């Protein structure tokens, strides 16, 4: 029987027999099967996209409750054939990581510490900063090069940077928000 890599990974994924191939005299199949079965038993699986480079390797994210327990390459992906690089293989630590902040943090002017703040308070304050800055610095009309008055509806006092790390839908929402507020310093990583 000839197995393509995709068949092989599928087979391995469904039976846990992956390590048995070429294992020689010792039959590891029951051990491997038990290990794999235990790890993802009753886990839910969702397709995801590797968040690192732009090859766009599709991943399978296994979770139990609100905990991700494993992330691996999706073997059906035509342009990756299920492979992941070292970064893609480490994706789980973006979620499961003790260094990851899970609270909103505020740093007052001149302060030397972060303070935890409720998300609602943060949103209220941020909204106020946007509003006040827009009210104060908005440029509604301006003379063009020939001295004719033109409506420009521009806000130069707020700049927006990022991101190539967020989803298309989020990029669109940010474009819509910035442009309809008048923001023109509007950039992301593609420029650098």
């Amino acid at each position, binding site marked *: 029987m000839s197995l393509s890599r995709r068949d092989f990974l599928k087979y391995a994924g469904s039976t846990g027999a992956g390590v048995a191939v070429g294992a020689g005299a010792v039959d590891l199949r029951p051990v491997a099967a038990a290990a794999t079965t235990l790890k993802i038993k009753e886990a839910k699986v969702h397709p995801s996209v590797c968040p690192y480079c732009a090859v766009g390797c599709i991943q399978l994210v296994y979770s139990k409750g*609100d905990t991700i327990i494993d992330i691996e390459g999706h073997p*059906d992906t035509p342009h990756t054939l299920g492979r992941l690089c070292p970064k893609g293989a480490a994706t789980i630590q973006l979620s499961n990581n003790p260094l990851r902040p*899970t609270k909103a943090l505020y740093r007052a002017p001149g302060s030397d510490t972060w303070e935890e703040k409720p998300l609602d308070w943060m949103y209220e304050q941020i909204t106020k900063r946007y509003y006040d800055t827009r009210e104060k610095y908005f440029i509604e009309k301006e003379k063009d090069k020939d001295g004719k008055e033109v409506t420009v509806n521009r806000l130069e006092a707020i700049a927006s940077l990022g991101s190539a790390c967020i989803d298309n839908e989020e990029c669109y929402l940010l474009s819509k928000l910035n442009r309809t507020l008048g923001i023109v310093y509007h950039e992301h990583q593609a420029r650098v």
Partner: protein
Amino acid sequence: MTTNLIDIQNSDVIMCTNNMAENHPVGFQWVMKAKERGAKVIHVDPRFTRTSAVADIHVPLRSGTNIAFFGGLMSYAIQNNLYFKDYVVHYTNASFLIDPGFKTATDGGGLFTGLEQTGKGGADPHIAQTYNKSSWKYQVDGDGNPKRDNTLRDPSCVFQLLKRHYSRYTPEMVERVCGIPKAKFVEVAKLYCGNSGPDKTGTITYALNLTQHTNGVQNIRALCMLQILLGNIGRPGGGVTALRGHANVQGATDLELLYHELPGYMAMPLRDVHPDLKTYLEKETPKGGFWVNKPKFFVSLLKAFYGDKATKDNEFGYQWLPKRASADAYSHQHMFVDMYKGRIKGFLADGQNPAVGGPNAKLARAAMQRLDWMVVKDIFITETADVWKTPGTDPKDVKTEVFFLPAAPAAEKDGSLTNTMRLIQWHEKAVNPPGDVTSDAEFFVSLAKRLQKLYAGSKKERDKGFLATSWTYGDNPKEPSMELVLKEVNGFATEEIKDKDGKVVYKKDQALNTFVHMTDDGKTAGGCWIYTGVIVEGPDGKLINKANSRKPADDKDYLGHGWGFSWPANRRIIYNRASADLAGKPWSEKKKLIWWDPAADGATPDKKGKWVGLDVPDFNAFLAPDAKNGDKPFIMRADLVGAFFGPLNDGPFPEHYEPMESPTRNLLSKQQNNPVVKVWQVPDKKNELAPLGSKDYPYVITTYRLTEHHLSGVMSRYLPMLAELHYSHFAEISHELAKEIGLDNGDRITVMTPRGKIHTKAMVTHRLKPFKIDGKTVHQIGVPWHWGWKGVDALPGSKGDITNDLSATVADPTVYIQETKAFMCNVKKGEV
């Protein structure tokens, strides 16, 4: 990229100009597959890397000399008759005649016709010169059509001008400028240019190695010109393989998180050019090519933004959009210079870490320390969020108020990302994010809704546009539906649309199937026309999200059209009409992709003929090869042909100039640097440059990336699995240079430029060798740039100095990208 990673396997020769094996390892399998099938692999890179290790030829090239190299290849192909003549004559502008007033840089001492002084006034007199492009144009006949000479012999034709322009770019000159020995260059030229013609194709891969230069755009143009010269665009195994660095840098560009455009590659209005919608559409809509449809796409975008309030009577809300004061403003580098000067008060850093990742990072940090307030949304607390804790800074002196909002990675939210080959792929939310972590979408929608509350009741004209926007996407305000956002991007009917027979084509709010159905009368809305078709409605009215389709590729469909959705219209290789000859037949059986089938059913029951094959045609599927424009594949260009002659701000042909900081005078002309380069004058000596011949900064430096780290390090330095893989920041230094300085492998060193200095470790290696440039030895070092002062405490090597403190605020004159791949430095032993 024009092509598809999977299709690289069909190449006969692959020229990697970047380090693909290390930076796009999973994509690189297709290069290896091609190699297994007999293809040759060339690696052009100053360093010997893992890509070189598996290449047939490694070509070390001094950083900043790519145009000399590509120009040399073009000249070699022309002189030795290796170009694909039928393709060049019919599918490019090689045969077009140019205004007799135009002279190439060969005749202009390194300059093209039309360079003018722009005067000195203004607050920021950074570009002292600009080109008057009045002679950079085609000769036209009485009907306004370009005059052509299909024999390519007319001295005014583009082909002859190209030949003359690159006549200086001989193998000897390439050796002197790039440091590539002549014999090696000729070997590469024979190999790459020799794989051209009906049954051969080659592809070229690139990344930031070509873009981060003061002639970055011309580097890419030179690559593209070489590809059309050899007939490599739109054909299997050909193409421009642009390898992007972030998971969604393609999507963020399509949806235009960029100052100069709106979603779908349409210009952001300019105050002095586009005072009203009518003028905007007149100036921005070309007379030919597919962009003649721009008014439909643009009005649909306005409808997506402003909804029902956008009507014909108010120019669909056009005046609500901001208008730029100038084309020379608001880019990344403008942003930080202007922030340092105090013009910017508030700042959102969303998933980007400019304290580490941008050019002249010291300036960026100093600029952010002058803000009134800043919002940072990221997965980890970045150096940008902690800018008030910058080593050497007293937090008391930093008045910037900082709001940090924790962000969710892809596995914790729904959404789509567009990969380097334009493939839109969906990810599903696997788990809820922990604590107060939210998606970026939730933050943007919450901010917009709260702002709308503050503006509610405003009668001011300037608030009307923002108040007209809608931020309701589904029933759950805490979790907006990303599929409904995607539907707004995709486009939908704003009212019932009927065909001419009165049959309902679209119900109100129904998702559009194709951008061909967009209109300029307000009946359709759509946030990004090139994405139309990614989400459609099934007969049951339910959305079918094609970004989430998962049909594997197979022998019948090697490009995998059932997997995700590739914009535009699920086309996997763009300009694929060029895979067939004038008559619509594949150039060869081996290189077939799409072809004209005269027997297939046509557009209407009474007609026959259709483009068919292995990909969705990037062409009118029913336009016969012998019909008007049926033989012109480059549909996005107004003249429908590939452009050798293509006016940018710094010339219609790429010309080699030295980087702003360089070890040598320009050997190709007396013009040292790009004559219209952008250099910022920044107060407080924050952007000093090393002059030519500086003894203080004698070595070339280039920056680069590593497999185990990611860009500015936010997604790698905090992950123990990755952070432990490199035990220190380092600089790669050749044995020859190490000997000259007196360094041993592992020594602590200082690398310095006029902007700043970093302390790091010397990695003395054979991977870099000194170059012979015009007979003189030139040393080059390489420094990765993933480090900052934050990381995993238990892994000290995860922290290190910021390489971008060394780079300068200088830019390409067309897109304002910086020059971080080639500048000058000094290296000293010890921490000085």
